[in-house]
């Protein structure tokens, strides 16, 4: 019965792998950064399903850390990289 959880985790991993195309294609810098946020949410879901499927409840703590730190990266990006770069390059490219 635990195989079905691993199957769901596999589907979510495929969703992550498909979402990575946006990093390569995204026109602005924020589009690329949003994929990291998608990784955070999908990674939490994968970890929860694996915790059920592999019967290892330590993974819930890793999910907690995941959810915190993916948002931290996005916030650092907005505050330090994207905002207030002297108004040059409205698309946010670090050109």
């Amino acid at each position: 019965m635990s195989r079905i959880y691993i199957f769901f985790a596999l589907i979510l991993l495929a969703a992550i792998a498909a979402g990575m195309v946006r990093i390569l294609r995204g026109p602005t810098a924020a589009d690329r950064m949003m994929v990291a946020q998608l990784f955070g949410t999908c990674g939490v879901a994968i970890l929860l399903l694996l915790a059920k499927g592999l019967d290892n409840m330590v993974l819930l703590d890793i999910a907690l850390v995941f959810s915190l730190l993916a948002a931290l990266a996005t916030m650092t990006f907005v505050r330090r990289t994207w905002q207030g770069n002297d108004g040059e390059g409205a698309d946010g490219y670090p050109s």
Partner: protein
Amino acid sequence: MDILHNAGMFFIILGLPFFLSGTVGLLRFPDIFTRLHALTKADNVGLGLIIFGLALQSDSWLMVARLFLIWLLVLIASSASCHLVARCAMQKKIQPWSRP
């Protein structure tokens, strides 16, 4: 017990299309605000459904509390970062997409 297990499985299966539609929206939508909308809302609803299903299947109340704590943290974090990105995009005068 069996009914709870089946109901939990139903909610988990219900949650998966939200994740898939979030990814499809991220890939297909035309500008940054719509992509942000697809990503944040759809994924959080999907995660909530999966967590609800797993909580129905778990055997102790401590586990349920931990699961909902994770969901609360993800909700706070993703709404805060979504708001930051959208506000910064507005300040940078990125035009929202409109039907041509």
